[in-house]
């Protein structure tokens, strides 16, 4: 399994990028070249140099340090938002699958359809206008949109597993209800959930950047890639690199999580799994 994984190009590239982003975020907890919050107006809009590897912004803050802390911010949003989606979504999906065809199942699935019917970003903006801007509320808004995604995936996968013989064998051995789900179904759908989670993680990072770009996500002075993009707009003619670096950071990490998801999908697919 491990050998096969290491020969899978998109898995390897995705994993390396993901590890790099996570490593950078963790490192920023202990060390950044400069304090990303400290403004040195004298040093404003410097191009990349030995002192400031990626240059400085309009307040003289070190861009590299801001990107490092921005990585941490993006990861935090991704983890919590996807975490909300996985826990609530998978639970709902299991409840729906357990009572397939029941009123409860119908209710849960229609609620998912309902949520899907709205354009996610517009509704997130709506939620944030209600709750007020801020990273916590952005996480909640993104998390809410992850719930139906996981509910559907989990329900579908659970129904497939339920049709398999070992579930009937488990019933014949005396198991019932939720203990079948915990012991026999969840472990068999975990792979699919993980794949979906890495894709949703990429989307969550993108969503946070978008909301922060619009000014209703992460608020200053907390650095966010989306905010950096927004700030850079004003100086696009003078200092285009200011927009390019956070843009690259967003694209790079989204690509990384997507590649990781693709790789995992191949590796965990029972059809390609060796016996």
């Amino acid at each position, binding site marked *: 399994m491990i050998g096969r994984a290491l020969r899978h190009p998109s898995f390897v590239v995705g994993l390396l990028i993901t590890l790099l982003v996570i490593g950078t975020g963790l490192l920023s907890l202990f060390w950044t070249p400069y304090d990303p919050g400290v403004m040195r107006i004298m040093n404003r809009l410097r191009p990349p140099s030995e002192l400031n590897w990626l240059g400085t912004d309009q307040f003289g803050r070190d861009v590299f340090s801001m990107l490092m802390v921005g990585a941490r911010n993006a990861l935090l949003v991704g983890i919590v938002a996807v975490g909300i989606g996985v826990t609530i979504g998978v639970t709902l999906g299991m409840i729906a699958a357990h009572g397939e065809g029941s009123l409860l199942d119908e209710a849960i699935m229609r609620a998912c359809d309902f949520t899907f019917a709205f354009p996610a970003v517009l509704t997130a903006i709506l939620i944030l206008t209600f709750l007020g801007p801020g990273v916590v509320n952005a996480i909640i808004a993104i998390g809410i949109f992850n719930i139906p995604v996981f509910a559907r995936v989990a329900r579908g996968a659970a129904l497939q597993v339920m049709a398999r013989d*070992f579930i*009937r*064998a*488990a*019933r*014949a051995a*005396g198991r*019932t209800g939720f203990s079948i789900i915990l012991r026999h179904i969840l472990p068999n759908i975990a792979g699919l959930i993980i794949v979906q989670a890495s894709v949703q993680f990429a989307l969550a990072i993108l969503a946070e950047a978008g909301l922060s770009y619009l000014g209703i996500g992460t608020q200053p002075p907390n650095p966010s890639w989306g905010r950096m993009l927004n700030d850079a707009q004003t100086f696009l003619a003078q200092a285009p690199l200011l927009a390019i670096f956070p843009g690259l950071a967003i694209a790079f990490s989204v690509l990384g999580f997507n590649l990781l998801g693709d790789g995992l999908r191949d590796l965990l697919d029972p059809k390609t799994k060796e016996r």
Partner: protein
Amino acid sequence: MLRVENLRITLRGTPIIRNLSFSLDRGEALGVVGESGSGKSMTALAIMGLLPGLMRAEGKVIFEGENLLDLDDDAMCLYRGRRIGMIFQEPMTALNPVHQVGDQIAETLVLHGLMDRVAALREATRLLDRVGIEDASRRVSSYPHELSGGQRQRVMIAMAMSCKPSLLIADEPTSALDVTVQSEILDLLRDLRLQEGMATLFISHDLAVIARIARRTLVLYGGAAMETGDTGVLLKSPRHPYTKGLLAALPHGHSRGTRLSPIPGFVPAAKHLAPGCPFHGRCPRGDETCADFPPPPSFEATTAWCFHPERGS
């Protein structure tokens, strides 16, 4: 010990099993035979209380004095796996791919509160050894995909007998295996029945397999009993045309070169069955009476539900 009385299973009003009765004594083996689609599996699942969602069972399934059809799911759990074990046709898919086989055997013991996990794992090793798996102490931590089909079926048997049930239901346990493995599994099941005293309800579409394991046989077709009696007598002088047809389709007893004669036609879907004998459309001896009225049992050397049985010898 097990007495099934007038069992009827319906799916949205369509009969799947009609008025089926049979019984099984302690330690006895009863074979249930019939073509695919005859209702063998549904009969077994009705006993376990595990019929697919929309199917309903009526009548009585008396097991150790209790009518299982009256029990709810919670009460049935004291029977499933504990007092009635069940094994299935597909050893490839009846084990959970993500758990070690020892774990899956131990699970049943822990579930029914017979042992703690540590003791149950030790017992799992002993059971694997008992069902003839070599190197049981190592195999206990194998995953299902690391085992052959025959070994997996042995694991299933170990699981089903872990709580020492007094009844074992085996639904086509050897049909997916090749002939030599099939024969080993049949020997194992016979040994277990004789040594542990488990009564066995042995389901197969293959009369030759039934003949090896069960002293008594029930022939099922279209959800109704066709004939029942001592397996030897049934094989030697079948009285129901359907049993005769099954026998003629066997490779057994034919001299080399003669053609097997499968029963012409195929099993009609449950909803197309007339009120009479389900076999009448394919039966060489059928007439209008057969189509319109359920045949009464005729008792001779065997019991046959037929208006025109062969005369017993």
